[in-house]
Structures are given as C-alpha cells and as structure tokens.
C-alpha cells in the first residue's frame, strides 16, 4: 500500500508541487527554529561553573588615580581590607571589566606548540575564584606564592585547556600569549559567564600585578544574603570615598544575568511567534487541500470502498497520502538540512543540527497527521453507492 501511495503522489507531482513546496519551506523554517532552540537549550543545561547570587559588581568608571602603580595597588589593597571589614561582605576581588554578564570582552591569541587559539582573557586577583565559588578541575588557583615567579602563572578554563592540550593535563605546560611565556598552574571549570544560553569560549586567567593594575577598575564583592539597599548605599559611599570615583556604579550579577538572558530570549520569542504564524498558515493550507482533495475524489473513494477498502482504510489512505507528501518534502528538506553540519554553517555542533532535524521531521509529521485527521474522517463517511452514482 505504501508503494501504491508513493506511486499515486508521484504521478500527481504537478498538482502536489505547491503543497510539497509549502511543507518544504515550513520544514526549513522549523529546522532553523529547532536548531536555535536546541542550541540554546543545550547551553542552558550546561552548569554555570560559578555562583552569581549575592555577588555585586562595582564599576569605578575610570581607573584609580595614583602617583604610581604601587600607590594604586595600595589604594585597592586598602579598599579590599575596608570592604572585607564590613559586616555583610564575605569576599572581594579585583577584576578586569569583563566580569560575568557584562558586555565587555577582552581577548588574546594563546599558543601551545603548534596550536594557536583565540581566547578570552581575564585579569583577576587571587580572591576571584573564591568570590565566584569557581571549581578547579586540576592544579590550583592563584595564591601568594605566585609573586615574581620565573614564568607568569595562568589558569585556563576547561575549554582552553582542551583546545590547547587536548586530553593531556595542561597543568605545568608553558603557553605563549602576547610574546610572553606563561606557566599553566591550574585548569578551572568553564564559566558560563556571557549568558545562560551562550556556550563557553576558551578563557585564560592572569594575575593582576603592578604592571597591569592601571587598567583595573572593576571589583566583584560577595555579600551575605541579607545585604540590602541600605548596605549597598554604605558600601557605595565607602568605595567612592576611597577611590574618588565619579562614575561609580554598583550592579548585582543576578540582575545582569537576567538582562543578558533577555538578549537571547526576546529574539527567540519573536522568531517563535513568526514561525507560529507560518505553521498556522501551512496547517490551514494542508487542511484545505486535503479537504478539497476529498470532494474532488469522491468517486475514487467510492470505488475503493466498492473494491474492498474499509471506512477506516479510506481514512488511513488519506492520512497516508498526506504523510507521503510530507515525506517527499522532508527528503528534500533533510538534504538541505544536513549541509549545515557538513559545511559547518554557523559552526554549531553537529549534534544540535541532528536533534533539530529529528524534531523538525517529527513536528511536520505531527502537523500533517493533525491536519489530515478531520478530512480523513469526512472521507470515511462518504457513502460508496452515492459517490459512485455521482460521477
């Protein structure tokens, strides 16, 4: 029977061309939507790698002024001590301004042997991992012993370690960055620090020292859960007074995260609404065409009943024809869809495209089944004696 249906549809390919095209376009749109949803969902499922609750960011706006680098270091050291002395402050860390969920980015090429990768670069101090409750995969985070070493110490995130050294342990390896040789002292978990829906890029952490202190104007402060607006105001005045910052801004990482997530969610919702309208149109088109087919093919349906088809069989045939039509579209659509992982379009993992392909195929079949159910029921209700007499 399936071969018969394929033959029937194939012989009517001209009449079915528009419908096949319509299903094909819907499939491609749905494939794009599902690829996007799958990609974002898989990213969302990845662990954050750090804790952002009760972490505040203080952006000084401009670098701290001082007679020399040592005095700037001293200002920050005093500020950190003063902040840590506040009752609701747990930890304080200095950082370059590309803190989690900020819009700032800083990157550099990192080289190991013949491998050269582009990596995010973070300048941090020894308290950064504690403030964000980061976990180490191997090696250690920065500590006091890292002052004046032979090679400057760096910590890689897992993505950078994998990209540079593969499955080999990266700890102890010497890497090159900006013409400097650096020793990897640890590998930290990936930090999903751009958004819950964004994948982690390779990242390298370097320790803030006197030479790099001039560019530092951001702090991360871990506070207790009961830190309120009044406390925030006290803290604000302390930082502003100590650094004489005019454009000081304090933000909560959890709020910054929500804002960053919205940048992904809002376009996704818009895309879903647009594709929802498209799918609704396709569903109406399918429904209309199938219904029209039944009224056009009443005598054929009557004939099939006379030759031995049951009412359920006729209904099933209509459904089968719709599924065969969809299959023609899906075969063509899948050919285009598999080009995405093969040609590395948008550079998403192949698994994302495969999941999206599977979901899109299931969705189209489901849509076709829903649209064919009622016309199929109508066809089953056709009385063979009446239908055969009409022609």
């Amino acid at each position, binding site marked *: *029977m399936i*071969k*018969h249906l394929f*033959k*029937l549809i194939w*012989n*009517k390919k001209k009449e079915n061309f528009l419908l096949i095209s319509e299903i094909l376009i819907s499939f491609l749109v749905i494939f794009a939507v599902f690829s996007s949803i799958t990609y974002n969902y898989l990213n969302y499922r990845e662990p954050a790698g750090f804790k952002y609750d009760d972490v505040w960011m203080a952006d000084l706006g401009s670098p701290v002024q001082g007679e020399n680098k040592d005095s700037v270091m001293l200002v920050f050291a005093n500020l950190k001590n003063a902040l840590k002395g506040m009752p609701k402050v747990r930890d304080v860390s200095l950082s370059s301004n590309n803190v989690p969920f900020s819009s700032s980015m800083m990157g550099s090429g990192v080289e190991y042997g013949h491998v050269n990768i582009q990596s995010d670069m973070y300048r941090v101090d020894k308290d950064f991992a504690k403030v964000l409750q980061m976990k180490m995969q191997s090696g250690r985070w920065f500590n006091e012993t890292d002052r004046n070493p032979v090679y400057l110490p760096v910590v890689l995130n897992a993505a950078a370690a994998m990209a540079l050294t593969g499955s080999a342990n990266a700890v102890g390896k010497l890497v090159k960055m900006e013409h400097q040789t650096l020793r990897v002292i640890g590998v930290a978990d990936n930090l999903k620090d751009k958004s819950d829906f964004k994948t982690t890029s390779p990242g390298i952490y370097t320790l803030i020292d006197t030479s790099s202190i001039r560019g530092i104007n951001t702090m991360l402060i871990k506070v207790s859960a009961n830190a309120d607006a009044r406390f925030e105001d006290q803290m604000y005045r302390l930082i502003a007074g100590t650094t004489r910052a005019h454009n000081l801004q304090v933000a909560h990482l959890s709020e910054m995260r929500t804002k960053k997530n919205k940048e992904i969610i809002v376009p996704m919702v818009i895309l879903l609404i647009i594709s929802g309208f498209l799918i609704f149109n396709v569903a109406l088109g399918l429904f209309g065409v199938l219904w029209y087919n039944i009224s056009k093919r009443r*005598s*054929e349906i*009557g*004939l*099939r*009943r*006379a*030759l*031995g*088809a*049951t*009412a*359920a*069989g006729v209904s099933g045939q209509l459904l089968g024809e719709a599924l065969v039509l969809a299959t023609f579209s899906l075969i063509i659509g899948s050919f285009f869809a598999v080009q995405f992982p093969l040609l590395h379009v948008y550079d998403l993992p192949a698994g994302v495209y495969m999941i999206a392909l599977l979901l899109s195929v299931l969705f189209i079949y489901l849509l076709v089944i829903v649209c064919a159910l009622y016309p199929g029921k109508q066809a089953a209700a056709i*009385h*063979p*004696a009446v239908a*055969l*007499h009409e*022609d």
Partner: protein
Amino acid sequence: MIQLNNIEKVYRTDTIETQALNNISLHVQKGEFLSIMGPSGCGKSTLLNLMGLLDVPSKGDILIDQQVTQNMADTKMARFRNSRIGFIFQSYHLINDLQVLDNVELPLLYRKSTAKERRELATEALVKVGLGNRIKHFPTQLSGGQRQRVAIARAIVGRPQIILADEPTGNLDSAMGDEIMNILLDLNKTDGTTIVMVTHDANMAERTHRLVRLFDGSQVQ
C-alpha cells in the same frame, strides 16, 4: 448465489420519502448471467448496489452464498466485497493518475498479497481482456472500449464469484459494446462467474440467461 427476500429501499430526506425498491424477491443462481432492465429511475442501480453490499436495504434480507449480510460489520463487509464481488461501472471509474496495471491491481491491495503476486494476477487479467500490451498506459490514453476492458480486468483480477455490471456498455458504441458483452459471456461460460448486469439495451439482455424487469421500484418480470 444471491438471494434477495422482500427487499425495500426508501430514501428519506427531511421533507421527502422516496420508495426506490418495493418488495423485491430475487434468487440469482450460481453461474447464472442475469440482466436487469427498466426505465431510468426505476431502481436498477439501487438493486445492484444492494447486491454489491454498497448500500443496505430499508427492509428485507440479502443472502450471498448463503451468508446473511445484514448487520455485517464494515470490516467484514469490505472483506466480503473484496473477495466475492467484482464491479463494472458505466463510467469505468478508473483512476486516471494510475497506470492500467496499477488500476487493475487495486482490489488486490485490500487483501494479503505480495507485489509480485499482484503484478502477475493483474497482467494475467489484462491479457485475458486483450490488453496485455497496454499495461503501462494511463486510462486517458485508451479508448472507451479499452477502458471498460481495464475495468473488467479489475473486476476479475481477484477471481470473484460474482460480477455486478452497471450498464457496462452504456457509454460505448455497438461494436465496442458487443466486444465487452462477449468478454462477459466468456467469463460466465468459461469461469462460471455469476453475473448480474443492469442494461438499457434489449439486445444485450437477450444474450443473458434471464431478464428481470423493474418498473417504479417493483419487479414486473
């Protein structure tokens, strides 16, 4: 083979009630070639539809091969039609989007059979009606007589014991009509197929074993 006992058929709408058949009792013997004649609207096709289990009587019983067909479930009735009855229609009712061979294979699709068996049986049936060289043609590429021969091949492909023909020569000229009639007579004679044929043509009816005349839904001969 086919037994109709006190058959009545009434078509009802909200406002009108039409008596299509009135107290028809008829017994068609196995291997008999029966023709039914009567003016248009006298109930010939309705009677044929009832015999073919395409419709149900308002009153009375229909027995086919001694089996009561009343209250038969849709699935059982469909299987019954498929295995025992072949249909030939005035307007052929071929599916224009399918080749001749596929049209003839249609009844076999509704029973257990392999593609090879279907192809062999359909080809055999087409050879029998003289269309062995037209299997890849589409119905629109054939003449009226050829189309009706395809319809006959479709009717006999499942080797039914009964063929119900509703004005099979009605759309054909006399030469083509004769050709079709000869095929039906041959089927009746050589295979022993029971045939019930509705016709307007007295000459055709004369060539059958028995003639039944209907008038206003009642049997008059």
